């Protein structure tokens, strides 16, 4: 996936977890402060990403800094998928 595709995929997964569409998918949008995710719903988002884009997380080594913004999450997704290629 290229970057816009990654961000779009995150947007679809966010909509599934939040149960509403997310219209602003700017990379500086903050998951906790702007979209009101919490530490649990972020994990649920990762589960949806695993299902939808083939992400495979390591539950033993999660760094919440990766989930600060849509951009940092996109970096995490891209890194994770690159490792699997």
């Amino acid at each position: 996936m290229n970057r816009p595709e990654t961000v779009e995929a995150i947007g679809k997964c966010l909509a599934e977890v939040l149960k509403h569409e997310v219209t602003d998918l700017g990379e500086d949008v903050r998951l906790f402060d702007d979209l009101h995710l919490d530490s649990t719903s972020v994990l649920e988002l990762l589960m949806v990403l695993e299902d939808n884009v083939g992400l495979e997380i390591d539950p033993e080594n999660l760094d919440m800094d990766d989930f600060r913004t849509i951009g940092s999450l996109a970096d995490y997704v891209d890194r994770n998928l690159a490792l699997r290629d």
Partner: protein
Amino acid sequence: MLAQLTTLHDLAAYAPQESADVLDVAADLGLSRSQGRLFHRVHGLDRLRQDPDQHLFDLLCAPARTVVERVADHEDIRYLIYAHTIQQVTPAGLDPATRIAELLGLPDAEAFSLTQQGCAGGLAAVDAAGELLRADGDPAAKALVVTGEKAFSKLARLIDNTAIMGEASAACLVGIGGGPAVVRGYAVRTDGRFSHGIRMTPQAVRDFGESYPADLAAVIQEALAEAATDLSELTAVIPHNVNRSSWLRVIKELGVDKQLVYLDNIPRYSHCFCVDPFLNLVTLREQGRLAAGGRYLLTAVGLGATYAAMVIDMVVEPATNEEASCQARQ
């Protein structure tokens, strides 16, 4: 003096034969696929035991009978303490502790329940048993601590985003001297900010989650200090089976190696109310991992929120001492 310390004389645990996949249980509870997978992938749950047709008292008496049958004189058992998480586990008018004592053939034992500390209540019951026996002063007297509950409804079964409860039970015979395990320290703290338990506000849930590792670590350190020891002298930490991810955070807070904390029963049994530390102790015993001279820390957290930790020393190797034998029918 050793004779005045609380001692653990015998221990047995039981879990129903019927085993369920936690993903199926999550679906039955109405959770989404991603919420169920979160329990499996992140929280480390896999299977749990349950038997919807088994009566509460059959669940409780299975390990308790094993222990009672090994006591030569049943009149030595002066107290029966049933520690439970859910405050109302039987219909009004039926006192479960008294009923358990009757079923076990202990009509003269003073029987009562201990609640209000959530899943930390089992360790509180061991501490209370020791205090009662010391106050009585009879070195032969014993108390039987019984734990175990039915996950009988969604409310009883699910702690949102944290745990799915399984069914198991345990019985622990407590004395004040002469047992194979000696209680060296016990610490407990209740944080009333979280007293609404499963009905906490979203903000309180967040605050509880954020303070949990540091607050539990502090109580663990307090119990270690009372036992005049530290983390470096522990053979193992024997925790409650709430979930793996919470324990990874506590492990990071404590700064210990993951291998020190026994987490293997989380995917086997999930969280079984007050039973977990006792069940895990029995599993370690069956695996030959309770060594004479070993120092262990039992710990549990109850919604409400109560943090508890207890340091025990194995004075003798349980496998070589019949009185100290721990059996599980798992």
